[in-house]
């Protein structure tokens, strides 16, 4: 049995996949920046800042991404800010996943043994220098595998923006289904494309993890 509907629509799906990749890359970049800032504030900030960070993390942990996307879509226009779905999607996903990224970075920073901090301080390093040449290089290596894992979750979550009307892979799949009336084939194809993106990342994450074991 040859999946003809899928073959016919595959180029169309690939164009959707392009948007998904673009959206994912931009969201990963934003969430990494947000995550790093939040992690530093969480670890080094004064009490009120730490509390603010905790609240942000609590909200993201407890509220579905879809609700925030709907809020962006339905509520923001009333405040006079009208974002196009792509910018809005990147913004919401970036800020949402920034919370997960911050947890990854924070755990990595906190996992450094106390002796590293003590040694750096006893060499007379200022905090900024200490972060720059002692903490970050080691923390990044520790954070790499869970970072890749979070990227994978983010890619899967980009499928939600199709619900608020952004044309990407999942939406392209729905349109292809409406035309071809072959939902099993088309959605299997869509799933396959997502699988290729996520599985390659998962594989890379496992490789990083294995490489780290040799270091220690």
């Amino acid at each position, binding site marked *: 049995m040859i999946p003809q509907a899928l073959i016919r629509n595959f180029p169309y799906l690939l164009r959707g996949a392009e948007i998904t990749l673009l959206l994912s890359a931009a969201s990963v970049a934003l969430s990494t920046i947000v995550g790093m800032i939040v992690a530093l504030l969480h670890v080094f900030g004064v009490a009120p800042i730490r509390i603010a960070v905790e609240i942000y993390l*609590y909200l993201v942990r407890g509220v579905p991404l879809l*609700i925030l996307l709907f809020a962006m879509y339905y509520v923001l226009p009333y405040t006079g800010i009208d974002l196009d779905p792509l910018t809005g999607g990147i913004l919401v996903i970036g800020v949402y996943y920034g919370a997960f990224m911050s947890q990854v970075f924070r755990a990595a920073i906190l996992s450094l043994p106390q002796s590293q901090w003590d040694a750096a301080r006893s060499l007379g390093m200022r905090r900024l220098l200490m972060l720059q040449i002692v903490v970050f290089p080691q923390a990044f290596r520790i954070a790499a595998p869970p970072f890749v894992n979070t990227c994978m979750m983010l890619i899967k979550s980009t499928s939600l923006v199709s619900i608020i009307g952004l044309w990407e892979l*999942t939406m392209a799949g729905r349109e292809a289904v409406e035309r071809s009336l072959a*939902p099993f084939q088309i959605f299997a194809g869509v799933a396959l494309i997502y699988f290729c993106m996520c599985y390659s990342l998962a594989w890379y994450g496992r490789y990083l993890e294995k490489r780290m074991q040799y270091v220690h």
Partner: protein
Amino acid sequence: MPFDLNFVIRNLPIFGNGLVVTVELSLLAIFFAMVWGLVVAFGRIARSRLPRTLASAYIELVRDTPVLVQMYFIYFGFAMAGFGLSGFMSGLLALSLQNGGYVAEIYRAGIESISVRQIEGGKALGMSPWDVMSLVVLPQALVRVIPPLANQLIVLIKDTSLVSAIAVADLTQTGKLLTERTAASYEVFLTVAVFYLAMTGIVSGLSRLAERQFAIYH
């Protein structure tokens, strides 16, 4: 923007209808995911190769594709094939299958974290393999997996919001329809968010309670 509390109170029955659907879906999906996850986990640690390969392939497959696409696959696919499932059933199936894969990996990590000496001790007492598993390994493993399991269940509860995309009148869909009818988007989404926060809060609270309750092995 002033918050119109009266609007929320007036529409509480409408929110309630959606909330009931979301809670029902969450509880059923949690139950099936936890049971199915155990089956997959046993496949993953089985001695023979076939169930191990099948379980690994299954876990990769469900974890590396978006749950929304899985829902569409089930909802539109079965409808076209002639035995359509309702949106609720499709959502329940997709959520149970995907989270079953995640939960299986959590169980496996828990089971493998139990020391070999525990198993040897059980065998030395003349227990059958089944008794070793059910009386020695699983009770200890289940206590250890409470925190990651609770995390996953929170993700599951949040993911139930996706069934609004396949025409289920859950909390999210109710909020969306209410917004479109009344234009009180600010109030609606804040209320919906609070309901979700309450549900996920209950799960994390219960998990902390359970952790303290069962922490007798340490």
